[in-house]
């Protein structure tokens, strides 16, 4: 996709059409996703950037609250699960390292202390030199809660979707795919991740096709003039993080990269049409790969798998490739990003940069929610701390949802991509996987 946008850039320099006098908007926007923001526009104004961030932080709180309600309800209604409910208490005594024979002692309210099981994460998206933002990002910490008599665990969902042709398929994935994964996860007792993810992606693909046949969203550029979205699609790289595992499901050419002990470990493989096994699959299905500004299915699409793109099926399939990775103490962070980043930044360079950010900003032993670091005096920082406090108070014991260091790492990666002349949209999610220090429960 980036190679097209390079042409776009060249074309703009050589002979920009008279009717298109608007300047290309290049900038980085740090924001928290919310349902009302289907197509955020990047802004070069720093004040707008920070102001928007504060606003979006509130939206994120609301969305988070909503997701808590949505995700807890199915759990509570499950007849097969015995539910242990402790009011005002989120305690997990068992984790992946505990023996199944451990018996959980249920402490009294007074001795329970808050522990934060959610990973820290940050997100940044930038329109770049292309004039439309067609990426979308979904962040759903604790989207699944699993409870048994002896343990309570939470699963966290992160997704990055890179749309092409228009934005509405990616926007639809952002709204729905985590819900489909949640449904599959809650109904599946064996935790067969490959099948769960494949079913979720297939359902998502069918939804965008069916959805296009009934009603078009007024929020995307197709408007009412093109009542057909056979030719619109999106990538989807999704990660579900549990206490024991990192699950990645990928469809298209976005990518997930784990940083483990300082080394970049890809957890997904890009679906390019000239990847040998993809080329074989396409040809066996009766399609062909043509080199037309790069390898493309039927000369049209530069990826071999996508959600949507009904006119190119069965050559372009929505079946994800799924990896399940056991978590280890050496895991540092996970990066999910679109090809706007990966086309111009190597896995290793991205890991090195994020690592510097996290190590500088977030000491391993530091605990969140405690006294703010002394010495911060600038007005903006004061505002941000105030917002944090408000957020903490509003959510009682849940504390901060996103971590500044992860967000700054994400922003830095998007800036690096722009500096390296990426001409695509760039969206980045950074998830801190380092274990919090466990507190002892009496």
């Amino acid at each position, binding site marked *: 996709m980036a190679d097209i*946008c390079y042409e776009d850039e060249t074309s703009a320099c050589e002979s920009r059409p008279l009717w298109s006098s608007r300047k290309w908007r290049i900038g980085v926007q740090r924001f928290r996703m919310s349902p009302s923001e289907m197509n955020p526009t990047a802004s070069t104004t720093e004040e707008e950037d920070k102001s928007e961030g504060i606003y979006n932080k509130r939206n994120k709180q609301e969305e988070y609250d909503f997701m808590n309600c949505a995700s807890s309800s199915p759990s509570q209604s499950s007849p097969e699960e015995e539910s242990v409910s402790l009011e005002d208490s989120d305690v997990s005594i068992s984790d992946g390292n505990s023996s199944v024979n451990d018996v959980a002692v249920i402490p009294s309210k007074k001795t329970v202390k808050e522990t934060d099981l959610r990973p820290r994460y940050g997100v940044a998206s930038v329109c770049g030199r292309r004039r439309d933002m067609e990426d979308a990002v979904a962040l759903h910490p604790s989207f699944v809660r699993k409870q048994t008599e002896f343990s309570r665990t939470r699963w966290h969902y992160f997704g990055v979707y890179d749309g092409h042709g228009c934005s509405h398929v990616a926007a639809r994935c952002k709204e729905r795919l985590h819900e489909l994964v949640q449904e599959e996860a809650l109904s599946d007792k064996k935790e067969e991740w490959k099948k769960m993810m494949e079913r979720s992606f297939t359902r998502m693909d069918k939804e965008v096709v069916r959805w296009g046949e009934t009603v078009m969203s007024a929020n995307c550029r197709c408007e009412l003039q*093109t009542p057909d979205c056979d030719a619109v699609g999106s990538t989807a790289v999704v990660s579900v993080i549990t206490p024991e595992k990192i699950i990645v499901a990928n469809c298209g050419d976005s990518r997930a990269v784990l940083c483990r002990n300082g080394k970049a470990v890809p957890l997904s493989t890009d679906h390019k049409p000239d990847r040998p096994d993809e080329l074989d699959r396409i040809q066996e299905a009766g399609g062909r790969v*043509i080199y037309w500004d790069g390898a493309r299915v039927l000369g049209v699409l530069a990826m071999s798998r996508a959600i949507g793109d009904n006119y190119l099926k069965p050559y372009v399939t929505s079946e994800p490739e799924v990896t399940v990775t056991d978590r280890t103490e050496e895991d540092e962070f996970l990066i999910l990003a679109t090809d706007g980043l990966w086309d111009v930044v190597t896995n290793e360079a991205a890991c090195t940069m994020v690592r510097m950010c996290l190590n500088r900003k977030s000491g391993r032993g530091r605990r969140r929610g405690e006294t703010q670091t002394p010495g911060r005096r600038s007005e903006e920082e004061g505002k941000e701390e105030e917002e944090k406090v408000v957020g903490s108070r509003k959510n009682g014991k849940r504390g901060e949802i996103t971590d500044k260091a992860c967000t700054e790492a994400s922003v830095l990666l998007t800036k690096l991509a722009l500096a390296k002349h990426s001409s695509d949209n760039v969206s980045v999610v950074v998830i801190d996987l380092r274990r919090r220090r466990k507190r002892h429960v009496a």
Partner: protein
Amino acid sequence: MRSPVQLQHGSDATNGFHTLQPHDQTDGPIKRVCLTRGMHVPEHVAMHHTHDVGPDQCCSSVVQMIHAPPESVWALVRRFDNPKVYKNFIRQCRIVQGDGLHVGDLREVMVVSGLPAVSSTERLEILDEERHVISFSVVGGDHRLKNYRSVTTLHASDDEGTVVVESYIVDVPPGNTEEETLSFVDTIVRCNLQSLARSTNRQ
């Protein structure tokens, strides 16, 4: 249920056209190709879908049956100023010369993301309201389809529906084969005609 789509390639032997051999490309003569040969179509349709193919060029046609009267289909097809009413892959379209109703008018089309093209400048060549014929040629833009000319005709089918025939002729880009070029363009044209069928039936 998707409407049946038929393909007629310029390289099909039944059209009386022989595949170009490499050694013919430098001095091959222009060949007249009738893309509706074998089909039962009105005489003017056959004439509009006959192309003079030079060396390093190729041509093809796509046929789409639509269960709607020709007037309904024509209301969408005739919009040189607003091809988005049924065509995919168009992000914006603007008339840059004339009003879109006369031969010689120009439009500037911006292409959606994900495709190997950015823009296309297109000239209206034919707009026959009586016989339902529209044709445009591509005279500029950022893409690899040089000397592209397209003709779309509508005529009534035997079962009160409409037969849409779209044919085109285009240069084979450097580095690609004739077969690849036809495969690429046919995919785009087929997608658009299927969209036209759905758009018409949705009205």
